[in-house]
């Protein structure tokens, strides 16, 4: 992979990510999430999975982001520009984030990952391989089914939580 592709994707991911946690207007913050999510989709693509690229765009950009925007539209109260967008721990939070990144980077760089480790050859048809791995009873079928149950439970839970209380 060309380094320029990676660095472009990294910029497309990180700069909007920083904006989306710092901007005062929460609607702008939610929309700045979109380049980040698309950049992560690009990472999936360059690392050899077209399927996850499509899923990332469909689910994150198409569904989760729209949900976020709906929730922002349906709630008022912190949208007033006069209000502070961050709590009193802003400085401590920034310190924790910088410390975290320092520790993680040092621990990544301290270990030799076999630099120049070539990417493995991708499977001939990664999408087919992923589908077969998901429904293979000796490998991931249980997790796949548990994910279905999780989605069902989340759907019912969201409806129940969101429902207007009876008699109101």
């Amino acid at each position, binding site marked *: 992979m060309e380094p320029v592709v990676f660095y472009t994707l990294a910029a497309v991911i990180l700069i909007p990510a920083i904006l989306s946690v710092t901007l005062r207007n929460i609607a702008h913050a939610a929309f700045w999430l979109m380049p980040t999510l698309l950049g992560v989709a690009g*990472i999936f693509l360059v690392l050899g999975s077209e399927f996850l690229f499509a899923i990332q765009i469909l*689910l994150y950009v198409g569904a989760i982001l729209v949900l976020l925007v709906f*929730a922002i539209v349906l709630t008022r109260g912190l949208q007033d520009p006069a209000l502070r967008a961050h709590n009193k721990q802003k400085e401590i939070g920034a310190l924790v984030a910088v410390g975290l990144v320092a520790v993680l980077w040092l621990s990544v760089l301290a270990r030799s990952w076999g630099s120049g480790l070539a990417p493995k050859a991708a499977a001939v048809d990664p999408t087919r391989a992923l589908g077969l791995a998901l429904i293979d009873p000796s490998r991931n079928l249980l997790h796949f089914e548990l994910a279905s149950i999780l989605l069902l439970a989340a759907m019912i839970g969201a409806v129940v*939580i969101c429902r207007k209380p009876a008699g109101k």
Partner: protein
Amino acid sequence: MTVTLEHFLLLSAALFAVGVFGVLTRRNAIGVLIGVELILNAANINFMAFWRYVAPPGTMEGQVFIVIVITAAAAEAAVGLALVLALYRQFGTIDVDEIHDLKG
């Protein structure tokens, strides 16, 4: 110079830290959820990079993990935003610093 595994790990660590900052400092509950989404995406970058660079050929578990994480993120977003709406209806605000009553 080529792109190695470290590049992806450093990118993912940075994205994770940005997400943690959002979770720690946002007053708006939706802002906190945005931070959580960033953290989950950072984890997915790592899964993908390790799958491509380290996992033996033929294993698909890295991608399976990503599918599961995206599923969990969708469930989390649905339930989390439903909670935000319920909180807004109950308290008239979604400031996570002001909501501290367990019993409405």
